[in-house]
């Protein structure tokens, strides 16, 4: 049978083996981390300022507004993301963070892109109202131009042209269900990201 010293040696070897194999397991297994996206809107100079021409949130027809919209993927894998641009007024419901419900505001356009883990996708978002009218104290935006493409706006008005807002929602492609979903799934949780920027249109609208 084993002598005492050999038995001790075997215990030492097995202990060291467990320690080193644990180190090997930890170094070769990717660690789980929090999965999320980052969505942001920057102003004309890619700063958190200069969101409106001449810093005036009262925008006229034909005034070009220069923003930069970005998304960063921290999901740990390639993702298909969609930024949906919606136009709202004061009364329209914003997206619901708790129920993960998108805003019912009319969709103007959307941008699709595959992005990698830790990659930031930033696009210039230059827009202007090209057609609007005012009737009975209510201003209605009829057409918008976004990145040189003109879009028809399905009937949206605001009292005296106050409190319009551009709503940007982040949607992702869910490979399991093969559907586009508002926000993303992180474990058993549903999370959403959205941004809104308010503006007024109280002048230079044809009567």
């Amino acid at each position, binding site marked *: 049978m084993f002598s005492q010293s050999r038995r001790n*040696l075997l215990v030492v*070897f097995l202990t060291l*083996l467990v320690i080193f194999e644990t180190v*090997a397991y930890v170094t070769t297994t990717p660690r789980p981390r929090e999965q999320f996206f980052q969505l942001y809107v920057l102003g004309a100079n890619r700063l958190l300022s200069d969101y409106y021409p001449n810093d005036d949130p009262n925008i006229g027809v034909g005034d070009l507004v220069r923003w930069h919209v970005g998304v960063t993927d921290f999901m740990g*894998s*390639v993702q298909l993301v969609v930024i949906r641009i919606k136009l709202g007024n004061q009364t329209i419901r914003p997206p619901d963070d708790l129920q993960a419900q998108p805003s019912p505001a009319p969709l103007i356009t959307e941008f699709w892109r*595959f992005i990698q*883990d830790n990659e930031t996708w930033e696009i210039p978002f230059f827009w202007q109202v090209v057609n609007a009218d005012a009737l009975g104290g209510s201003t209605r935006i009829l057409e918008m131009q976004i990145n040189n493409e003109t879009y028809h706006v399905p009937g949206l008005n605001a009292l005296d042209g106050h409190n319009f807002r551009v709503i940007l929602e982040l949607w992702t*492609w869910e490979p399991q269900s093969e559907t*586009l979903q508002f926000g993303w799934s992180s474990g058993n949780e549903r999370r959403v990201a959205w941004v809104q920027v308010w503006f007024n249109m109280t002048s230079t609208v044809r009567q």
Partner: protein
Amino acid sequence: MLRIRWFLVICIVLAILLPLTAQTSTSALQPTEELQPGFSGAFDLVHRAEAAGATHEEVTGLVLLLNKALQLDEEATRPSTSEAQRATLLAQANETLGRVETEATRLEVTASQRTFTNRAVAYVIGGIAAFLATLAYLCTGYVWRKYRIKRTFQMRIFPKVK
């Protein structure tokens, strides 16, 4: 009798028309709610390659191709695009997706083999390290014992000074 016949005719007409109207209303949502089947398959294969351990640099090439296919598909669905152009663009998009699928499948195999080798090497190194550390422990013990013996034999006995 005539009323029953009319009722049956109306029922049949409604049975035919209702599914058709439902089809029209759902197809209006398709462009923004659904993705071409080719994209879904290619995306799935890229995910598998990533899960198998493909590096960030390896996946970059696939993502570029996926975005190229997305751009071609977007151009094809523009109202200003002619039918001939649309067919060409869609064919190019499908070809690009085919390249993604081929490349992602190859990458998945390569990455999984590499991951397996890396894991095996790490565990073998762990075993070797444990063996070497045990050897070091043994040698240290041996040297320590020899040192203690040497110290013991170097001892001198002095009479107590009163």
